[in-house]
């Protein structure tokens, strides 16, 4: 089933392959002011992400993962420090940067098709080309029968897949994913993990994915960033030196996974 979906997307059909972007985050700090109190959400974040790299971020709920992605995508301009994409500072949103939000954020008044086409609204492309790309991406996420469905008619997982298609369709240089597979069942999840891996090798775009699933983080990531909470900061960065496709059952894989898990739960009781 996954193989069929994969075959549908041929390399040569893709127009204008995007160049992956290099992201540099330097001593990033973010505070929120609430009722006069100041809440330090992110503290001294330093992170360099190479072009085409896949970085997974894991961390406790509320440690600022979503906030970090919102900053990178440019939704909030009010921060200290630098965020540079290909040496250009990020101060607002751009079509170079795509995001899949934690809740799918599909527009409820648009069909799946229109929601995906929404990403192409401002692009200067012929209508037929837009149509073709939308159809291609609907296929990509296995939603072929649901092009004309409204979000309320989709299951949580289907909506999430539509949101992934919307983020991919305009081929951003860097794609941010905020727990994109969180709402999915285990099977669809594994299927989409493979899809993401494939899309990533194919598009060669830079990807940053937040997840609560450590196995998923290790399966997809070239590196896994482990964040600490209160205030949110980078605790540890684990490199995953395994070749793709990765074998979840292999000893090396499980070793890395267990180490990160122990880090997260604060229990270093191995050997």
């Amino acid at each position, binding site marked *: 089933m996954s193989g069929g979906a994969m075959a549908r997307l041929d390399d040569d059909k893709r127009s204008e392959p995007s160049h992956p972007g290099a992201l540099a985050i330097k001593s990033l700090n973010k505070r929120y002011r609430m009722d006069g109190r100041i809440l330090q959400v992110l503290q001294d974040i330093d992170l360099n992400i190479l072009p085409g790299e896949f970085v997974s971020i894991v961390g406790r709920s509320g440690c600022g993962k979503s906030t970090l992605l919102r900053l990178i995508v440019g939704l909030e301009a009010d921060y200290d420090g630098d965020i540079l994409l290909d040496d250009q500072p990020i101060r607002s949103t751009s079509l170079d940067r*795509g995001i899949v939000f934690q809740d799918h954020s599909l527009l409820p008044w648009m069909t799946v098709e229109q929601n995906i086409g929404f990403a192409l609204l401002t692009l200067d492309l012929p209508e037929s080309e837009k149509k073709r790309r939308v159809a291609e991406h609907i296929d990509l996420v296995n939603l072929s029968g649901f092009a004309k469905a409204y979000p309320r008619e989709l299951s949580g997982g289907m909506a999430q897949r539509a949101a992934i298609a919307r983020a991919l369709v305009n081929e951003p240089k860097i794609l941010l994913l905020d727990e994109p597979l969180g709402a999915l069942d285990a099977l669809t999840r594994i299927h989409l993990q493979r899809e993401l891996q494939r899309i990533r090798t194919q598009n060669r775009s830079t990807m940053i994915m937040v997840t609560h699933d450590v196995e998923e983080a290790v399966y997809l990531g070239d590196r896994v960033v482990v964040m600490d909470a209160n205030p949110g900061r980078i605790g540890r960065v684990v490199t995953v030196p395994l070749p793709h496709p990765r074998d979840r059952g292999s000893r090396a894989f499980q070793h890395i996974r267990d180490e990160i898990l122990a880090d997260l739960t604060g229990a270093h009781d191995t050997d």
Partner: protein
Amino acid sequence: MLTLSRFRGFVLPIALIMLWSALSHRDAAHSFIFVPLENVVASAREMFLNGELSRNWTASLIRTSSGFAIGSGIGIAVGSIMAISRFADRLINPLYQAVRQVPLMGFIPLISLWFGNGESSKLFIVSLAAFYPMVLNTYEGLINTEKKYLSVASVFKLGRWRTLRYVTLPSALPSIFTGLMQATAFAWLSSVGSEFFFNPGPGLGNMMLNAQAAFRMDAVLLSVIAIGVTGFGMNFLVQRASRVFLRWRSTR
């Protein structure tokens, strides 16, 4: 038993009608107020056949629809301007909130003195009745667009006007339809009501006043029924329209 219990809702209306006709046939004093229902039917027939009913009905309906069009049109415009421009908001909102506190009927003497007692004053009241709910609901709908949808628009670089067209406006649509629903109801009742206060002319309100002056309860009742049924029909139409336009909404 189950099928019978479905008709429990009819018990009370039927009982009331029976009580009514029992009272109407007691004596002359009673039948003055509790007119025999056959008289209502007869006068309905008569007024339908001589065209009086349709003439008055049309007059009220035309006034309602023109007032509704004017009032809700301006209302949507003003509400949108307030939502889009902060300056306009600060300028108009306090005035709107202040003026809105005056009950609609309270403006009638003023309008009558300033603009006369003719049809245009009635139209003014109807427009005002439709205007109020439209301003509020349009404004509310537009400024309460969920932040996450605006984020999506921003991520895809939609720009001001496209955001308005594809995000803010559709998200305000349910609220705008609530406004339209209230506006039709208010326009209709103020259209009929305004006839009580200004110069007599064709309309269901005047038909009712004439009937009252002639002590014809049957014709008064007939007018009340016509007003109720028409109001119900208009509400039904708007509700239908909203269901078509808002079919993307989850029906909870």
